[in-house]
């Protein structure tokens, strides 16, 4: 066993950390230029990475930094789906095109098989809800059902749709963690078929996204814990740094213990991204469940130990706290993944 990053990944981490520390302006073309988007895809897909540990390195750095970029939504997810359909990912990798994957529907909650949007006679009709990055995408990949009942794994196709297509309405809004989301309504919207039977491709892409959001949250938690440690060392009350109070310093260590658990969970997820689907999803459910639980602890304890200042918009901690908490609302929450873990555990 060896838990060190390879030389290439170490370089990627260093480069990205330095870049994000001083990043300004539109980050997207700069990230493409740095090769960060290419690192998300394998050589076969036109990139130069694509393994679980490439993803975890990139997204942990994004999570550590006080920046919000829809790299999962405008690059990773649509890119993996394009590749699965045998299409080129080149335009995504060089940053010239940004796509979004509109899959989630209100009744689906966190289940990937639940699709009610219909594909009939070359046209899509239905509603997609809380699609992150829809606003910043040039066009969409949309899932729709050409056969079967709403929960059937069979009969879900993938379709390319222009943002300006007829019958498509985009209702965009801010997200509490930063960035933008949208609800999309489709009414007889013309669409081009990408993939006929896509459930396997969708769950594989979502597994990568689950790992990515977990690694990103790990990075944000790392920053929140570091900020809290620094605050406990500098904030004085009763004539001494509050970190000298045992009741607080012990709680800081409890966070650290859980943070290391979360780091191991992300490593396990990264190492199993290319495993057989059931095993991959079993391990990633464990990862996401731990991230959800530790995320809540870190959010609540880091704000509490900061006191009022941790609740202000001006101080960065609040932004990290919101990203950490809202990650529990993406790609399945703590309870959803506990249920998945139990269900999949029977077969693993």
């Amino acid at each position, binding site marked *: 066993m060896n838990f060190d990053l390879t030389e290439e990944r170490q370089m990627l981490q260093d480069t990205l950390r330095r870049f994000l520390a001083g990043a300004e302006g539109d980050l997207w073309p700069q990230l493409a230029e740095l090769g960060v988007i290419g690192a998300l895809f394998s050589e076969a897909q036109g990139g130069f990475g694509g393994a679980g540990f490439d993803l975890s390195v990139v997204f942990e750095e994004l999570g550590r930094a006080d920046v919000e970029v829809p790299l999962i939504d405008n690059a990773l997810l649509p890119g993996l789906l394009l590749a699965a359909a045998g299409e080129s990912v080149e335009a995504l990798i060089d940053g010239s095109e940004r796509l979004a994957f509109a899959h989630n529907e209100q009744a689906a*909650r966190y289940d990937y098989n639940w699709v009610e949007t219909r594909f009939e006679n070359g046209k899509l009709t239905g509603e997609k*809800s809380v699609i992150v990055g829809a606003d910043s995408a040039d066009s969409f990949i949309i899932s729709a059902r050409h056969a079967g009942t709403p929960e059937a794994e069979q009969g879900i196709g993938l379709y390319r749709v222009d943002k300006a297509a007829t019958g498509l309405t985009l*209702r965009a809004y*801010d997200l509490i963690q930063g960035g933008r989301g949208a609800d999309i309504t489709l009414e007889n919207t013309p669409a081009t078929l990408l993939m006929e039977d896509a459930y396997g491709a969708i769950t594989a892409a979502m597994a990568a996204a689950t790992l990515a959001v977990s690694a990103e949250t790990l990075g944000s938690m790392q920053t929140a814990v570091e900020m809290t440690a620094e605050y406990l060392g500098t904030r004085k009350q009763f004539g001494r740094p509050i970190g000298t*109070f045992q009741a607080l310093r012990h709680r800081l260590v409890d966070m650290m213990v859980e943070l290391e658990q979360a780091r191991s969970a992300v490593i396990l997820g990264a190492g199993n991204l290319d495993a057989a689907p059931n095993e991959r999803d079993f391990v990633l459910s464990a990862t996401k469940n731990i991230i959800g639980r530790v995320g809540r602890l870190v959010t609540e304890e880091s704000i509490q130990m900061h006191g*009022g200042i941790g609740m202000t918009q001006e101080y960065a901690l*609040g932004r990290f706290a*919101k990203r950490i908490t809202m990650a529990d*609302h993406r790609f399945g929450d*703590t309870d959803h993944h506990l249920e998945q873990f139990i269900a999949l555990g029977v077969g693993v």
Partner: protein
Amino acid sequence: MDLSYSEKDEAFRAEVRAFLAEKLPKELSEKVRLSQDLEKSDMEFWHAQLNARGWLAANWPKSFGGAEWSAVERNIFEEECAMADAPRIVPFGLSMLAPVLQKFGSKAQQDHWLPRILNGDDWWCQGYSEPGAGSDLASLKTRAVLEGDHYIVNGQKTWTTLGQHANMIFCLVRTDTTAKAQEGISFLLIDMNTPGIEVRPITLIDGGAEVNEVWFTDVKVPVENLVGEENKGWTYAKYLLTHERTNIAGVGSSRAGLAAVKRIAKKVQARGRPLIENPHFAARMAQVEIDLMAMATTNLRIVSKAAAGQAPGVESSLLKIKGTQIRQEITDLARRAVGPHAMPFASDALDASNTPLPDPYDAGEVAGPYFNNRKLAIFGGSNEIQREIYSKHMMRGAK
């Protein structure tokens, strides 16, 4: 022991319900239910409704025009108001300053300020915390120097809730820099319109602007606005804090919050079934409900020990710790319940006049209140300070 409500209690509950049905407008209760910001006029309206009915000053002795309700009556009232989504009563004048004036103020101060509080003539805010004096409140630095018949005040207060609406502020100021920290503090009443006062809003992580910084530069305060004796302010400040904690268990608002979570969980679909039938979510809700049942009784046990018009003693620390844990747990349930729909957010969504965001479960803002309610364990003496207070009480015999 008798755990049942008396006939008189039940009649009172019916009376409160009838009042709420008649006097609380639907537009107002909807704003409260959906966690939208209330206008100053909304809060003033509700204050006036309660005052007209004689139910505003539940805690005040009858001699000052209060209702002097029993603990059980107060509890019934709080519960019914919360369940009806009534606005909270702005507490700064009514439940914080008033008890101090009643116990330590001069006759002239009582005669002048107390009726004005009831009538809503003044909007009070609280000048306690400072950037360097939070949990360690006694280390406050805002300075007041007596020059002739005025104090000259310089310094900064922070976390001043609803200070943007206030025309008056009660302040802890340092009048003796040579004495021990607690012994050089005085309690001043300051007109917010005095030259030299500046109020700056602080935006919180939920986008709301409920707290402020208040800056004082050579602010002249007439000496008759000193409450009690100079340098005895710490005693009054602590007395006020016990009253601030009177309703701290928040049983009523927890009941209302839990009822809201259940309503949401019935609407949300998970795997083709209502979320309320999901075993994991149902277990989470049941756990909180069980805690709340016990908490409601703990609250009644502790609060009934205090005489009418008085605040409970050191046990209020227990109420604050458990009460805030339960309230925070409920906001966590609400954000879980709505799933991906916790994310949509408009920085001005708290304003009811704004175009509403998609809200398929009629839940209003849920992520915002989750973050906003982190404050419950921080303000009014953080839960860590409550543990200090209570542990000192428990270990008072230890050497």
